[in-house]
């Protein structure tokens, strides 16, 4: 699989060709980032992994779109975000499967951890499906840190801050470990764990 990193806001139109496998890693930053991935040929596969770390007065807009134009294509998108301070995020994603795109699978996951009282998020996962032999689903969750997890870690001697840090790291690792390109993963790690 080939990997590509998007770390600046802007509009990105990516076409995945016949038999091509592409991974796109996006760091959601202050500003608007629009990513459109079009699966153009049979056997095309795309994996979009988004990470958002919102802080202070960030306003982050991340919009992803995967479009299946032909049959036998596959995609999956996972966006994980952690929100602090007064950050606001708008995470939208759409899976579009056109009429001819039969035997397609696509899954979209958007998960946000709210860590501060002032942070806000709007999550809009969408589907437009015009073929029947497909499997498509999306899921979105928004929640604060699970108190049970914090309790467990602090009961083992970690301070609350240390516990929170560890939980957040574990949360983001779920998507980080899917980045199979070491260089990109390192770059992203440096940015988000700074």
């Amino acid at each position: 699989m080939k990997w590509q990193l998007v770390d600046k806001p802007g509009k990105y139109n990516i076409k995945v060709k016949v038999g091509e496998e592409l991974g796109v890693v996006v760091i959601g930053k202050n500003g608007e980032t629009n990513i459109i991935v079009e699966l153009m040929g049979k056997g095309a596969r795309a994996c979009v992994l988004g990470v958002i770390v919102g802080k202070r007065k960030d306003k982050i807009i991340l919009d992803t779109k995967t479009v299946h134009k032909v049959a036998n294509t596959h995609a999956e998108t996972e966006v994980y975000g952690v929100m602090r301070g007064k950050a606001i995020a708008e995470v939208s994603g759409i899976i579009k499967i056109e009429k001819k795109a039969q035997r397609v699978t696509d899954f979209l996951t958007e998960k946000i951890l709210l860590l501060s009282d002032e942070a806000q998020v709007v999550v809009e996962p969408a589907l437009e499906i015009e073929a029947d032999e497909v499997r498509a689903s999306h899921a979105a969750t928004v929640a604060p840190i699970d108190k049970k997890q914090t309790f467990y870690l602090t009961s083992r001697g970690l301070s609350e801050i240390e516990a929170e840090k560890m939980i957040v790291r574990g949360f983001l690792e779920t998507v980080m470990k899917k980045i199979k390109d070491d260089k990109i993963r390192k770059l992203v790690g440096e940015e988000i764990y700074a």
Partner: protein
Amino acid sequence: MKKFDEDYKYGFYDKVRPKFKTKKGLSEAVVRVISKKKGEPKWMLDYRLKALKVFEKKSMPRWGGDLSKIDFEKLTYYVDPTEKKQKSWQEVPDKIKETFEKIGVPEAERKFLAGVESQYDSEVVYGSLKKELKSLGVMFMSMDEAVKKQPKLVKKYIGTVIPVGDNKFAALNSAVWSGGSFVYVPSGVKIDKPLQAYFRINSPSFGQFERTLIIVEEEAEVHYSEGCSAPRFSDESLHAAVVEIIVKKKARVQYTTVQNWYKNIYNLVTKRAWVGEKGEMIWTDANLGSKLTMKYPSFILAGKGARGETLSVAVANEAQHQDVGSKVIHLAEDTKSLIVSKSISLNGGRNSYRGLVQINKGAAGSKSKVICDALILDAKSRSDTYPTNKIFEKKVSLEHEATVSKVGEEQLFYLMSRGLSEQEAMGVIVNGFIEPVVKKLPMEYAVEMNRLIELEMEGSVG
């Protein structure tokens, strides 16, 4: 040569009666005539006129289904109910008659549902219920009557849950509404049998612009239901209803609508409930018919611990578009919402789920769960999901899932290996798919609905 216009066409089979209806198109004059014909007090006329101004200014929604073919100038906005033109049984489309037969609609109801009779002769069934309700202090009458008999209550609550300016069609309804129900349940009264819309006596049901207002006082309970799964025909192609419900502290309300309008109808409905502390509101909604339905039963969870649930089933067959969903706004702490939407698209039909979950700052401890499952039965059909989730508060939990798929090959094979034909197996699986919603419907609806689904499957299996 006899003038063969609309007035005489049906009269040929029936007594010719003098009919009253307003000219085509909407204007202040038309609104005044409507109010005068009803003998309404001035405050209601003023309400209508204000709404008309809002309607004229407001633009059409830029999302949802295709509303481009609606020509407001060509519609008739009022037909005197008691003189509504009588259709003859012969003119009812054969397919409708067949469906009645197949899903087992009782003979007595068929003519009413087909629009051949304007009133359901429900005295026998309704008579004793009416007495019981009266003794409990429950008010159940047409909205037209309520404006005259309960002006204080109507004035207090109308437009409080859905303001005139909410959207273009709510404004339209506020200007030209006619018919619809008014229900008032006093504190602590729990009505155990569902109140059916067509039990309202002395006024025809299923008008174009019905306005319904339901007020349920503290700790009271009621289940109101309307419609039926048998296909219904209407000459008026635009239906824009408004339903407002006030659920007070610890009260419990369920509102069931089963709609199967014929394929020429635009069905645009605004329904919303205001829910107070520890109150509970359940919308059970089945959308089976119409050319286009745009309907998003909503809740404002205003009081601490308020709960809202929308359970909906939508079937979009050939040339149909169901653009439906739900909206919930969590304003208070510890509020809970659950939205379950099941849709089936076949023969080129299109289902779109449109939803909004908003959790405002201060609504700590709130939980929301949305489950949207869509079945697409063939390559011609379409399914969309457009949910929006706005979270402005940290201590909440939001979960949203949606899946789109076709009927599982393994499941079909399994059932067929037990002797069910492919069509029967489809019917069983699809009915199983919508079961979580259907089981919350009153029994008669559930049975009809299952049979209707089996009928629809007949058309889908090649």
